[in-house]
């Protein structure tokens, strides 16, 4: 069984917001980046994975098991790092670890201590004295210490300085290196994804807009730019477009790009392009015009 995470037709209805029929899957040995705007449904999806929020309908299978029926088994093997820390500010890191490690069959204390030393996380200091970056690193250290097979991370690099970001990305790469484990992480920092994501899943307003491996994304989409005259009559073809007075830039299906434009106007889109143009493509034209007229 190569699929570590399988989501089928997941739906969650709130007042005024809906996660609508989401499906995607993640294979062993891969890192999946989960991108979308704020409020698109990333954190809610992750919370549903962990059964902290009840789904309305759909199936979630982790390690081939249903995520509610085998919740305890599954969570033994999952490492989770949320976007807001789960620490009790008045307590210390070693207290939290003492509280936590009793739940896991496998806890590698040496690894944990090594990570803390390497990242300069003082174990006996109160959490309220930790910076955001330190808290994230602490949560990551805890997540890694119980030897999980799946890492679920919600904006893990958000509070980190550039050096720490690279260190974390390296760790994630090494984590999946043996082909048996996987990483699922949501982020806005698309440059991180350009570096390590194997799969990209794009969510917008509760729906999955795209979920593909990175090579297929680069094959399927193209970024086109040029002078405004080149755009004449071809606007409709674009998935998302940014027009100025002199120049334009937009995301378009590659096959269409090759038909309508010259080779030297076509480029490989990066993940930021994919994210931004797909979302802009959905935005209401009228309200955009009003904003532009500011």
């Amino acid at each position, binding site marked *: 069984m190569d699929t570590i995470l399988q989501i089928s037709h997941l739906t969650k209805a709130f007042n005024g917001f809906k996660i609508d029929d989401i499906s995607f899957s993640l294979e062993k040995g891969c890192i999946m980046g989960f991108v979308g705007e704020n409020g698109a449904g990333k954190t809610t999806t992750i919370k549903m994975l962990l059964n902290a929020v009840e789904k309305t309908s759909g199936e979630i299978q982790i390690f081939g098991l249903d995520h509610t029926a085998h919740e305890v088994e599954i969570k033994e093997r*999952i490492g*989770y790092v949320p976007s807001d820390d789960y620490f*009790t500010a008045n307590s210390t890191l070693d207290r939290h670890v003492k*509280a936590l490690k009793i739940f896991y069959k496998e806890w590698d204390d040496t690894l944990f201590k090594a990570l803390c030393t390497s990242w300069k996380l003082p174990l006996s200091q109160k959490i309220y004295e930790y910076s955001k970056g330190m808290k994230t690193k602490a949560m990551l250290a805890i997540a890694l210490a119980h030897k999980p097979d799946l890492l679920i991370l919600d904006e893990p690099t958000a509070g980190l300085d550039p050096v720490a970001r690279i260190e974390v990305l390296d760790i994630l790469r090494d984590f999946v290196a043996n082909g048996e484990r996987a990483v699922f992480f949501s982020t806005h920092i698309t440059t991180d994804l350009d570096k390590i994501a194997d799969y990209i899943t794009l969510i917008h307003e509760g729906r999955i807009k795209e979920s593909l491996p990175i090579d297929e994304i680069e094959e399927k989409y193209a970024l086109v730019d040029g002078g405004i005259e080149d755009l004449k009559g071809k606007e409709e073809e674009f998935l998302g477009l940014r027009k100025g007075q002199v120049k334009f830039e937009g995301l378009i299906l590659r096959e269409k790009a090759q038909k309508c434009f010259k080779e030297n106007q076509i480029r490989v889109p990066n993940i930021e392009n994919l994210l931004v143009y797909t979302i802009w493509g959905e935005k209401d034209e009228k309200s955009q015009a009003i904003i532009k007229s500011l």
Partner: protein
Amino acid sequence: MKRAKLLLKASRTMIGDSNSIALGLFTAIVWVFAAFAIGFITYCMTLYKTDPKLGQHLAIGMIEFSPMVIGYGMARSFYTGFIEVRKNSGKSSFMNFAMQLPVTKEDVIKAQFLDLLRCALPGFLVLCYTLVFTVIYKADKIILMYSGALVLFFNILFLLICLDKGIFTYIFISSKVREIIYISFALLSIFVISNNAQQKIQNFVALGAANSNLKILSVFSSFLVFLGGEAGFISLLLTVLIGWYLSCHLPAKIFRLKEGRK
């Protein structure tokens, strides 16, 4: 059950008596009071044989003392690492913490209940001791009434807390409203202790016995007398069972029901 115990241990480790001086002191004081109360009751029991009148006064004094042990002991249950399991939880940091752990929501609920039991323990012990006293020494009406009142106090408080932890998993009532309810109870317990109030209650009861219009008061006082004796044990047991049902069994059933619906 095992996981629930682990959760309890975890929550106490994170926000434990051992790492918060105020909490530690609070718990210590509650237990000291409980020990004191029990010691005092024993003293009263020995005294009661030789000098019933003195024994009675002392007993009343001791019983006045107990609501604190009961009330504050259970108040301790609000200062744990637990924050309620809510329908679409995500806000509280303990749920963020517990959500990754290999435990289920039912385990968290059970752990909350165990925590409540642990907090109610000093009060429970004092109560049991009081009841033993009233039963063995065939205490007179006044003492039975007081002990009955204590039992009632314990039962109501316990059930209320269980209701809170259980029902509010599913029905959302503004935290302001709940705060008001708890504060009223805290105030009520102080009221129960104050001498003035007790005098007034005694007067009311006496009045009730005399005046048939205030029959309800005498019924109430008989009820208290009833609770103050052997029946008290049974009522305590019932309370714990009902409390467990309300705060653990029902919510768990509702969880399972919701899951099963798919």
